[in-house]
C-alpha cells in the first residue's frame, strides 16, 4: 500500500510540476477578511521582489522563480488546506504570516522536511535551532520586540522605569499573548507595573479596554495588534486624548494602513520596525523599470514603498539570499527544500551584501547558525508624523540575558513534550 500511495503521490506531483526547472516560493497570503489590510501589502511586496529577480536576472542562479498565492484569510483551517495543497510541489520555504497557522505547521514542516520562515512572528522559542530544525524566525522575534521597546523606554527615562505603569493591549490569540512572558520578566527586573488588556479577535470592540486605560492612566501603552484592531485602537486612543507619543505598537501595528484613517490626529504614535521603509533605495529604480513600469506589479500596485510592502520585499530578499546560499553550498542551481534549509541555516546578511542588492542599511546585519535561528534580534523605533513614518532611533539591541533564558525554557519544554533529540552537537 505504501508503494501504491507513493506512486500516486509521485504521479500527482509530476502532474502539477512543469518539466522545466524552477524554484517554487509559495505565498500563503490573505487578501480578504479582517486582516487583509496587513496581508495585501505584504503579499504584493513578496511577489514583486521575485518578479524583479525573474525579469532582471532571470531568476536566482539562472533558475526562474515561481510564486503562487494561496488565500488563507488568516484562518488556520484554510492555512492547513493551503499547506497540504502546496507541500507536494517542493516549496522552498513556507511563510504563513500568521502565528496561529505557524503553530499548526511547525510539526508538519519538520516532518515533511520543508523549511518555514516566520519573520518577526510565530513561535518565539523556535529561535533555538537545536530543537526546531526547520523553523527560522530571523531577524527578530516577539520577545526581542518587547525587550527593544522596554530598552527604548529605559533610554527615554534615564535608565529607570521603577514605578512606571505600562499597559499591554493585545490581540487575544497566540500572537498577542507571545510577549506577555517577556514583559513580566522584564517587569521584575526593571520594576515597572504591567497591566494586561486582551482584545478579542478581530478587534473592533475596544471601548471597555480604553475606558480602563483612561481610568488607570498608564505611562505607556504597548500594542500587539493586527488587521482592523490597529486603526480601531489608534482611533480610541485619540478619542480619550491619550498622549500618542506614549503609545507604542509592535512591528505589526505600525503601517500606513493603521494610521491613515486617523491621519494627522495620530501624529506622535510610535511603532517598532525590523527594517527601513520608503522608496529611497536604489532597488526601487529597478523595481520601477522591470516590474511596476512594465505592469507586472502584484495586486493593485498601490502599496509600493509602504511599511508592510517593504516587509514583504524584505522577506522575499531574505528567502532569495538563502536560496542563493543553498545553491553555493550544494553546487547546484536546482535546489530542494532540504538544501534550502541548509542555505537558511548558513545565511549571513552583511551591510556590503545589502548595498549590493540595492537596499543599503535596509535591515540589521545578522548571521544564522545551527543554534541560533533568530538572527541578531535588533529593531528600531519609528514615529508617524501625520504624513509618513520617520525612523527615530538606530538599531536597538534586545536584552539577550532574559530572552535567551526564556527561549531555552520554552524550547526545552517543547522538546520534552514531543521527544525531540537536540541537534548541533
Amino acid at each position, binding site marked *: 500500500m505504501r508503494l501504491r500511495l507513493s506512486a500516486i503521490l509521485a504521479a500527482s506531483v509530476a502532474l502539477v510540476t512543469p518539466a522545466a526547472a524552477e524554484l517554487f516560493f509559495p505565498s500563503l497570503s490573505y*487578501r480578504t477578511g479582517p486582516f487583509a489590510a496587513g496581508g495585501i501589502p505584504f503579499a504584493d511586496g513578496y511577489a514583486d521582489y521575485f518578479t524583479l529577480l525573474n525579469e532582471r536576472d532571470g531568476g536566482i542562479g539562472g533558475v526562474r522563480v515561481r510564486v503562487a498565492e494561496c*488565500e488563507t484569510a488568516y484562518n488556520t483551517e484554510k492555512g492547513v488546506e493551503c499547506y497540504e*495543497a502546496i*507541500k507536494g510541489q517542493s516549496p522552498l520555504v513556507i511563510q504563513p504570516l500568521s*502565528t*496561529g497557522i505557524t503553530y*499548526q505547521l511547525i510539526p508538519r514542516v519538520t516532518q515533511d522536511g520543508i523549511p518555514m520562515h516566520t519573520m518577526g512572528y510565530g513561535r518565539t522559542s523556535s529561535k533555538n535551532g537545536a530543537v526546531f530544525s526547520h523553523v527560522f524566525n530571523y531577524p527578530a522575534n516577539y520577545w526581542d520586540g518587547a525587550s527593544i521597546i522596554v530598552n527604548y523606554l529605559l533610554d527615554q527615562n534615564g535608565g529607570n522605569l521603577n514605578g512606571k505603569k505600562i499597559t499591554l493591549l493585545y490581540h487575544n*490569540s497566540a500572537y498577542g499573548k507571545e510577549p506577555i512572558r517577556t514583559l513580566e520578566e522584564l517587569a521584575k527586573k526593571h520594576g515597572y507595573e504591567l497591566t494586561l488588556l486582551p482584545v478579542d479577535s478581530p478587534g473592533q470592540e475596544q471601548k471597555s479596554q480604553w475606558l480602563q486605560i483612561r481610568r488607570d492612566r498608564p505611562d505607556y501603552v504597548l500594542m500587539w495588534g493586527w488587521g482592523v484592531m490597529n486603526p480601531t485602537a489608534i482611533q480610541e486612543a485619540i478619542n480619550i486624548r491619550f498622549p500618542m507619543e506614549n503609545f507604542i505598537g509592535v512591528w505589526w501595528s505600525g503601517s500606513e494602513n493603521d494610521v491613515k484613517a486617523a491621519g494627522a490626529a495620530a501624529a506622535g504614535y510610535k511603532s517598532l520596525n525590523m527594517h527601513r521603509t520608503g522608496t529611497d533605495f536604489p532597488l526601487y529604480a529597478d523595481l520601477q523599470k522591470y516590474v511596476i513600469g512594465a505592469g507586472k506589479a502584484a495586486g493593485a500596485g498601490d502599496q509600493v514603498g509602504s511599511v508592510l510592502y517593504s516587509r514583504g520585499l524584505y522577506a522575499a530578499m531574505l528567502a532569495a539570499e538563502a536560496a542563493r546560499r543553498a545553491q553555493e553550498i550544494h553546487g547546484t542551481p536546482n535546489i530542494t527544500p532540504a538544501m534550502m534549509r541548509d542555505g537558511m541555516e548558513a545565511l549571513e546578511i552583511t551591510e556590503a551584501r545589502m548595498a549590493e542588492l540595492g537596499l543599503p542599511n535596509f535591515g540589521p546585519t545578522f548571521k544564522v547558525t545551527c543554534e541560533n535561528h533568530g538572527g541578531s534580534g535588533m529593531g528600531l523605533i519609528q514615529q508617524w508624523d501625520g504624513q509618513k513614518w520617520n525612523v527615530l532611533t538606530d538599531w536597538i539591541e534586545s536584552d539577550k540575558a532574559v530572552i535567551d533564558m526564556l527561549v531555552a525554557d520554552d524550547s526545552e519544554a517543547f522538546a520534552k513534550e514531543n521527544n525531540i533529540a537536540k541537534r548541533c552537537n
Partner: protein
Amino acid sequence: MLYREAGDFKTSYRDDAQTFPIAFDRWRYYAVLAVAFGVIPFVINDYWANAILIPFLIYAIAAIGLNILTGYCGQVSLGTGGFMAVGAYATYKLMTAFPDVSILIHILLAGGITAAVGVLFGLPSLRIKGFYLAVATLAAQFFLVWLFNKVPWFYNYSASGQISAPERTFLGIALTGPASPAWAAYLTCLVFCVALAWLARNLTRGPLGRQWMAIRDMDIAAEIIGVNPLRAKLTAFAISSFFVGIAGALFFAVYLGAAEVGESFGIQKSFLVLFMIIIGGLGSIFGSFAGAAFLVLLPVLLKNTLVGGLGWPTDLAAHLELMIVGALIIVFLIAEPHGMAQLWRVAKEKLRLWPFPH
C-alpha cells in the same frame, strides 16, 4: 424501476422497521460503507485527507450532535463551538497527563466530559425555551472560550495559550501528530463518524428519540402523555454534547494538531454547525451529512476550480466563493425550507412512483 418496494417482501416486524426498508437503498448504504472502508484508505493522499475528508467527517459528527439537540429535541443551541472546545481541551489535558493510555479512550472520555458540561449548561432549558435558550447557550459559548483563555492550567502554561497534540499511537501506528499517515487519521475519524451516526440513528428511532420529538413538537402535550421533560431534555443535551465533544477532540487531535480557543472554537464555529443542520435538514441524520458536505466541500471545490482550474486571482476567488455559497444557501432554503434532507425525501418519493406518477 430499481427503486421500489414492489417484490421486496418483509416477513418479520424487524425487517419492516429497518432503517433502509428499500433494497436499493440498503445496497447503496453498504456500497458507501464498502468504498469508505475498503477503497478510500488505499488511495487517499495527504491533501484529500487533511483538506477534505477529515474535516467533512468531523463536521458531520458535530452536525449530528447538534441535530439531536436542535433537530430532534427542539432546543436551540449556539454553544457548539464552546462544547467542541471542551472536547479539545479535555483530550489535550488527558493526552498530556496520561500519555500511556490509548488516544481512542481519551477521545471517548473527552466526549464524556463534554456531556457532563453540556448537561450543566442544559439545566436552564427546563425553564426557558426558544430564543431565550439560544441566548443562554450563547453565554455558555462565551464563558467556555473565556475560561480556556483565562486559566493557564488548561493549556499547560504554554507561552502563547496554544495547545499542540503530541504524537500518540494505536497498534504502533501514529494517529495524532505530524507523522500519522493520511489513511490512519482518516480511518480514525471514519470509525468514530460511522459508529456515532449508527448510534444516533438508532437512538432517534427508539423510545428516547420519540420522547425528544414529543418534547420538540409540543412540550406540554408530551408532559401530559407521560414524557419526563427533565429526563428528555437533559439526555438530549448530554448525548448531543457527547457527539460535539468527540468532534472537538478529533478536530484538535487528529485534524489540526494545534488549536487556539478563540480562533478554532469561536462563535463562528457554532454558527457554522448550526447552518449545516439548517441547510442539511433539521431532524435528519442524512441532513447532517449533507449540510456538512455542503459547507466544507463546496468552498474547497470552488477554490480549486476558480484558482487552480481557471487561474483567477486568489482574492477574487475568495470573494466569489462567499457570494456563491451565500447565494446557494438562499436558493436551497427558498426551494426547500426543510433543507437538503427534505429534497432527498421528495426525490425518493418521486422515484418510487417513477415512471408512472399516478
